[in-house]
């Protein structure tokens, strides 16, 4: 309970940081960032256990943000976890800065992999997981995918590959916020039954509530979900979570914040 309250507070701070970054930068994808805040908070404050003094230690657990457009959420969590500084955040997408609106390998010693073109992160994660097996290392690789990202054929190539090679140190987390470019995922290109598809590809996994910390922590610790298989967590989330006028709307995939909307959003997070 104490841990849950701690994580909830962290999540609120991260949400505010995201809103501040996206208000200042006038960048989009607010909804995509807000839906994965609890997932990132659980990872960075309990699961990954990254050594601040040596964040790139060889045996570290790896995290790959395959839905790269949510990088403001990643920067915000990295700052909250003390892996980058608050000053770094102010550089987000500014002229001449290296903090792009998608992750770039090596930036601030904290980004594992460059992403931005959807459907790439899982394969790179599988390669890392394969090396852990080969070199007898016990690190795990966590990859955060968007549900819309699962439209990409490359995801399913990797789904086959990872189960074939029994990469039970690989974890795919799907931020299943059910909205993509043109509207409801069910209407754009239906993915359901999503978990069943992954299971048919040889993965173990479960459906979880992607905003519920006890559920997230339990699932992220219970790895592999099925012995000898890679794990998929289909995390039910709400696009735009935490700001009433953003929740479950397509608009906030694109819309940028004006001062009135920004203040209103912050007020809601502070509640």
């Amino acid at each position, binding site marked *: 309970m104490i841990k849950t309250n701690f994580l909830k507070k962290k999540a609120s701070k991260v949400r505010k940081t995201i809103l501040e970054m996206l208000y200042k930068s006038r960048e989009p994808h607010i909804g995509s960032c807000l839906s994965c805040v609890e997932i990132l908070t659980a990872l960075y404050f309990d699961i990954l256990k990254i050594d601040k003094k040596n964040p790139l230690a060889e045996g570290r657990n790896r995290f790959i943000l395959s839905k790269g457009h949510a990088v403001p959420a990643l920067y915000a969590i990295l700052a909250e976890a003390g892996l980058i500084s608050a000053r770094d955040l102010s550089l987000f997408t500014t002229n001449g800065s290296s903090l792009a609106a998608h992750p770039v390998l090596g930036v601030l010693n904290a980004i594992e*992999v460059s992403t*931005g073109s959807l459907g790439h992160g899982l*394969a790179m994660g599988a390669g890392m997981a394969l090396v852990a097996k080969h070199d007898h290392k016990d690190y795990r690789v966590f990859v955060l995918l968007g549900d819309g990202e699962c439209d990409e054929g*490359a995801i399913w190539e990797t789904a086959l590959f990872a189960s074939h090679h029994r990469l039970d140190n690989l974890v795919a987390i799907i931020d299943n916020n059910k909205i993509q470019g043109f509207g409801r995922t069910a209407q754009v290109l239906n993915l359901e039954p999503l978990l069943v598809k992954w299971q048919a590809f040889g993965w173990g996994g479960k459906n979880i509530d992607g905003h519920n910390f006890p559920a997230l922590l339990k699932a992220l610790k219970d790895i592999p979900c099925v012995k000898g298989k890679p794990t998929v967590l289909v995390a039910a989330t709400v696009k735009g979570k935490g700001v009433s006028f953003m929740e479950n709307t397509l608009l906030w995939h694109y819309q940028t914040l004006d001062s009135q909307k920004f203040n209103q959003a912050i007020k809601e997070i502070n509640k």
Partner: protein
Amino acid sequence: MKRILTDTLINLAKHDNNLFLMSGDLGFPFFLEFSKLFPDRFINAGIAEQNMIGVAAGLALSGKTVFVYSIVNFATIRCLDQIRNDLCYQNLNVKIVGYGSGLTYGKAGATHSGLEDIAVMQSLPNMMVFSPGNIYEAERVIKMAYESKGPAYIRLGKLNSNIVCPPATGEETVTIFVTGTLLNEVIKVKDLLFKKGIFVKIISLPIIKPLDVEVVKSVIKNSKAVFTVEEHSVVGGLGSSIANVLAEENINIIFKKIGLPDSYSKIVGSQDYLRHIYLLDAQGISKTIIDNLKNGVK
């Protein structure tokens, strides 16, 4: 060139536990030896090239050097987005080997013709591009790719030639730059043209990118004409690269790119047959050179 590839990789892998070989379900049976010697470092990724490149990137991000293998187009164009973003953008140690340069698979139709791969690969930042003409060059470029940091593309052909460029005498007035296994034909061209009183210097260029501009400039110093020969589209290959050098260095000279036309072949046939049809055999190349020398007013 498959033999020299496997021999060289086995040799390298014996001395480097971090060398991995991945294949897109091609290379049977000649990768069997590698897979038996190093079963945990040979990965057949199945017929899934996008994933193969991504996994190779993950291996490289974890300190491994990876060779990936498939037929030219499937190793390059099929998974171009992964090559660009995973390998080149992140500048990773993954070496792509494409087998079947140009018209190697001439009977298979244009899906299998290596027409645009050099153009596409050499446009990518950080990517080195190699196209060996004989077994010595093949071994050399495989080792170069292995030793250099970052991504590389190695384009291999069928011919296991051990014929090397004849040395220049200094009397030549025509220079031919050639890349890949057409080297053999170009060596015959030298003899054919010699009989007509045309002295030709042959420069084989197995390293297309980075192109050694100084070498190119120095070898053509006393030439009145320059020709490029490649089993690749005339768009964006070696010929285009040499043309860039001539234009940027203000070298006013007779110049002709000899290669495959900017089109997909409507006919099929053996490599020799199609080379003949597309004027890429020794006779055809000689004819193009003679015609251009006649027409050249410079």
